[in-house]
């Protein structure tokens, strides 16, 4: 286990190294560079720009800048926001819990519903339920998340007034129920796409597994159908499903960004958008990296889980 973990950790580290180079490169390829906003502003003089460049170390060679930046990222010194001058690491970490809450809740909801729908569809292949869920999943996958979010705000917040239209807590409020009410719409909107993916993937995985010999053996034992599906079918499906969960992290992170912007959810996505409007370079870079770290960690976690679940994966005890 230790060797496997070590190998995967080193692999992930190299991946993140590549990620950092690509994002740093992208930022410097951007027309006007990191200070594009200032160069376009007529009230900012050329001397001002030189001064800011020197201040942020932007006048040095690119590779020096990169090494300095990468070392900073690794050691928790993520630089300072162009606006207000707060340490980026504080700004981002302030927003992280909100995003994690949104993503975690949506993922949990999607897992439960998606896997259940997928198993039912596979168990009743070609039934009305199977078709209905297949078509519903396809439409759900095709709905623009931001539009679905808008419609749900119009319907449940503005028209029916059942739920708040956005934010995380009411001004002055902050009780558990209040927070829960704020959570419902964003979570449902974010979970919709995930549910659709999970149900379809669970269904096809289960169908593949239900064709296997060991399922026939289980049925020959005379155990209940539900037990065949869950104890034998779902157990064998766990490995591919956990792998999918790992691969789904980019979708989850991206979906969280879109959802946050629609609902004004004060997480990393909102921060990213406001940083984008002000071209707040260090913040953008940091969030891009945090997003990528989440993806890499998600995959790593999925791999470790698979190794733990599947007895056939041989783990070196070294």
């Amino acid at each position, binding site marked *: 286990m230790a060797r496997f973990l070590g190998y995967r950790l080193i692999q992930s580290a190299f*991946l*993140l190294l*590549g*990620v950092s180079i*690509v*994002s740093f490169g*992208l*930022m410097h390829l*951007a*027309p*006007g560079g990191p200070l*594009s906003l200032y160069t376009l502003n007529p009230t900012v003089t050329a001397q001002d720009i030189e001064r800011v460049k020197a201040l942020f170390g932007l006048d040095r060679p690119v590779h020096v800048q990169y090494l300095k930046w990468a070392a900073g990222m690794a050691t928790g010194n993520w630089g300072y926001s162009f606006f207000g001058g707060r340490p980026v690491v504080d700004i981002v970490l302030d927003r992280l819990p909100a995003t994690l809450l949104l993503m975690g809740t949506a993922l949990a909801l999607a897992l439960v519903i998606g896997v259940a729908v997928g198993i039912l569809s596979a168990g009743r*292949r*070609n039934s009305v339920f199977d*078709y209905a869920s297949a*078509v519903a999943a*396809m*439409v759900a*996958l*095709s*709905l*623009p*998340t*931001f*539009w*679905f979010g*808008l*419609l749900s*705000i*119009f319907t449940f917040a*503005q028209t029916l007034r059942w739920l708040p239209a956005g934010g995380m807590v009411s001004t002055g409020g902050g009780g558990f129920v209040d927070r829960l009410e704020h959570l419902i719409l964003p979570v449902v909107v974010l979970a919709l796409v995930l549910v659709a993916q999970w149900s379809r993937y669970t269904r*096809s995985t289960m*169908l593949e597994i239900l064709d296997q010999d060991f399922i026939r053996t289980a049925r020959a034992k005379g155990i209940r159908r539900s037990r065949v599906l869950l104890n034998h079918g779902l157990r064998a499906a766990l490995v591919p499903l956990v792998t999918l969960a790992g691969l789904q992290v*980019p*979708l989850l*992170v*991206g979906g969280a*960004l*879109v959802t946050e*912007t629609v609902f004004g959810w004060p997480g990393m996505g909102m921060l*990213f*958008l406001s940083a*984008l409007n002000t*071209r707040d370079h260090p913040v*953008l870079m940091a*969030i*891009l990296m945090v*997003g*990528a770290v989440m*993806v*890499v960690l998600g995959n790593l976690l999925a791999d470790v889980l698979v190794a733990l679940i599947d007895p056939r994966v041989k783990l070196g005890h070294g």
Partner: protein
Amino acid sequence: MADATLMAVTIAPPRAGLLKRLVRHRLSILALVVLAVLVVGSAGAPWLAPHDPEELDLASRYAPPFAAGHILGTDDLGRDVLTRLMFAGQISLAVGIAAMLVTVVVGFSVGAFAAYYGRWVGTVLMRLTDIMLCFPSVFLLLFVAAFVTPSLASMALMIGLTCWMEIARIVYSQILVLKSADFIAAAQMVGAPSWRIILRQILPNTMAPVLVAATLNTANAILLESYLSFLGYGIQPPEASWGNMLTNAQSDFQVDPWLAVFPGIAITLAVTSFNFLGDGLRDALDPRTAGR
């Protein structure tokens, strides 16, 4: 005799698979029909549209659907919504399809070069693919879009350049399998140059999965364009795209909720159709799932 008894005792109806395939098929055909309508409506907008897309009718702003002369009503400046939807479709569909072409070209090149030349070229290219896959594509796209003057071409290029990785992986693995296949070895043995082997032998063999991925990429690209334009980083008004028609939907909602509905339906219709089409293609092209 046996057949007669069989008719009487039916334990599991054998029609199930057929029924399923019929439904699937019908959905794919329906998707094609919807797409045809969308394409004809958008491409033919200059001739078919009931109004001019820039024509302001300040006397009848925020007209509801079926108001005099405006089937889907008018927007905040009194422009005809149906007309704008049709013209917006030109942009949105064009961006989607152009972006898809970019993903195919880039993805195919990366995958093919990596697989065919192997060694360090292959390693570098496929690691780059892995790295690109670590970025949630929306982040990457917004990041780039904020620094680029938006146009149809730049949008298509940006979206394409953030979504080519899946095709690269498909092509890479397909070619690796094919490389060890006998007929490729035979082509090499008779001295066919490598570009020729790529074009004549490998291209047709990787077509099926790439076609499916490309169709699904079109759907995804339309979604991304609409989001980008909705946020204001995409197609700029007064030029209409389905996404930017929704930009003011939230503030206009109290006045005219319909403005929020139709562009979203247009996006959903287009995306659903491409998704169903891709799904149908997958079923049709993959013999393994034909019976499912």
